[in-house]
């Protein structure tokens, strides 16, 4: 097996916390805009995860420039031996290289949040969301591996971490220094497969895989504490052998710190990002505890969110 490889220090020119927050707020506005346009969307996921995803892309992951087309390619058929036209959405995360990181996106109902961030980062064209949830488009409501920014098909939740483990394992076998980053939602820790995966990562001493968890404490039926608690998550993960950090999920510096220098050890990294599912859109708190998918119930409510978006745009300008 490979000897631990010293990792370079974080890039001093990396964007600071204020810059990450600026991207995160832009993501919230874009997701709100689309939720208004479509009268429905995974809005609370943008509120909770915007800083986590923005920090991963701006501060944590070493990715090459996007190689995907600005206008997403239409659906070209599912992968198969007779379909040479199938493609991957991972090319929006740059090319694969031994020293480059990989991004595995697990809760793919957050797709709109990821697409929005890719647009803000310039990895995806500004009009890409015109195809969101349209027939024949790969900019799917729940992403698959052809969707921009997606490398695996993870809609059946809690399957991505195992796949990322296999990828990380393979990269270690080949002696690559690049790391594998997995973005997960906390609900996925209800699935047994997640714990099988952490057991395997620890047993095989896979130290080139890091997980960021959007711990927003919400799931489809409501508050996780009512549906099926996963707490104490940090203690559970520590008991499973991970290097666990619990941080404020809206603080870019706190989010980025645990990843600094990560990659040469023999334990997986788990960063539990404690987040607020209404952060930046206070109006949404009225809907608690049903935050999983937002659809406006009345014209008054729709107008209130339209006014909020206008105010958010004004504040950003």
């Amino acid at each position, binding site marked *: 097996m490979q000897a631990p490889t010293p990792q370079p220090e974080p890039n001093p020119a990396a964007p600071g916390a204020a810059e990450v927050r600026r991207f995160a707020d832009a993501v919230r506005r874009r997701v709100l805009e689309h939720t208004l346009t479509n009268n429905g969307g995974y809005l609370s996921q943008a509120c909770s995860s915007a800083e986590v995803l923005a920090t991963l892309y701006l501060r944590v992951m070493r990715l090459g420039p996007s190689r995907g087309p600005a206008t997403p390619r239409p659906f070209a058929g599912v992968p198969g031996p007779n379909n040479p036209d199938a493609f991957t959405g991972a090319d929006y995360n740059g090319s694969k290289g031994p020293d480059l990181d990989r991004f595995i996106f697990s809760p793919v109902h957050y797709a709109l949040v990821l697409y929005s961030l890719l647009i803000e980062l310039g990895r995806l064209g500004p009009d890409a969301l015109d195809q969101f949830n349209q027939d024949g488009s790969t900019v799917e409501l729940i992403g698959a591996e052809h969707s921009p920014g997606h490398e695996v098909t993870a809609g059946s939740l809690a399957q991505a971490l195992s796949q990322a483990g296999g990828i990380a394992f393979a990269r270690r076998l080949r002696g690559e220094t690049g790391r594998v980053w997995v973005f997960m939602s906390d609900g996925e820790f209800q699935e047994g*497969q997640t714990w099988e995966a952490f057991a395997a990562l620890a047993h095989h001493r896979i130290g080139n895989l890091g997980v960021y968890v959007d711990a927003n404490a919400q799931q489809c039926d409501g508050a996780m504490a009512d549906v099926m608690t996963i707490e104490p998550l940090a203690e559970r993960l520590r008991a499973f052998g991970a290097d666990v950090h619990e941080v404020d999920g809206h603080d870019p510096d706190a989010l980025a710190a645990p990843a600094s220098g990560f990659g040469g050890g023999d334990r997986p990294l788990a960063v539990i990002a404690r987040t607020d599912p209404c952060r930046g859109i206070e109006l949404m708190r009225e809907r608690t505890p049903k935050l999983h998918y937002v659809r406006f119930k009345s014209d008054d409510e729709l107008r209130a969110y339209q006014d909020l978006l206008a105010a958010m745009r004004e504040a950003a300008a």
Partner: protein
Amino acid sequence: MIETVTRPHRDHLVRWAAERPEVLVLSADLTASCEADGFRDAYPERFFSLGMAEQNMMGFAAGLAREGFFPYIHTFAVFICRRPFDQVAMSIAYPNLPVRLVGFLPGITTAGGVTHQAVDDIALMRIIPNMTVLECGDATDVDSVLDVAQAVDGPVYIRQLRGEVPRLFPAAEPLRLGRARRLGDGDDLCVLSTGVCTEEALRAVAALRGQGLSIAHLHVSTLKPFNDPDVIEAIARARHGVIAMENHGINGGLGSAIAELIAEEGLGQRLIRIGLRDTYAHGASRAWLMREYGLDAMALVRAVEALTGEPTGIGEDALAAVRLETMQAAEKTEDL
């Protein structure tokens, strides 16, 4: 007499993988039980123990396959097809990854009872898009199935045999993807058998030929894709009908594949499906279970009688008196 080979997969896997560094073996706490212990000892750096955690193992295999490795999962067939079905379908089959799922203890070949008897695995794997489905029936199939699987662009399910395995077919005649083995020609009846049922079918067909019946007998090792022109021709020629014989439930396996083929090709043949008749089994010896559930040579004789409407006069004694030879000899007999 036919030769019996002890643990053919165990030795063959070690030899076969020697010059294939891209081949890995993943195991879920059934390493020696699935004859992967030889590989583990010979190539420890390519063997990965993933514990009793099949869902995660499927995902790990998918990730390794995405990176250019060829993971050969070894566990019991039930633990590939039932518990982690979603992971097989979504993590492995949807992206068409070259993961090879080697499943042991097919049907009622184990005394392990209902939890260990894969009576639905062919059905479950056959309905998954991109999946190729193979089944071994003898030591020659076992010796050649890895070459066939390795050449497939996509996931492969191998219904594998372990332990004492008869060599029914000449060692020099390997399994071929999508092509049944023609064990005998005839036009009264067409018998299509898979796996361990082929040995039973050979016994019955020999006795039936002795009674003057002309029987086409084909051994099927590729369950999906299922479009062999030899199979279609043999079915079309059968005067009295077709008999499918499989160590599996009658729903979704060989019998169902044949029914689909008969209907879609417009062959209009009667079909009797020998197999477990929409039932689970339980723990007992293989011979006892094959008789109890009607998967043995006598079951085929009874099916022939049902299709022809004539008693054959063949009893247990006559079947017991049949001496099987390797198929080389049987085919020579047929040629005469």
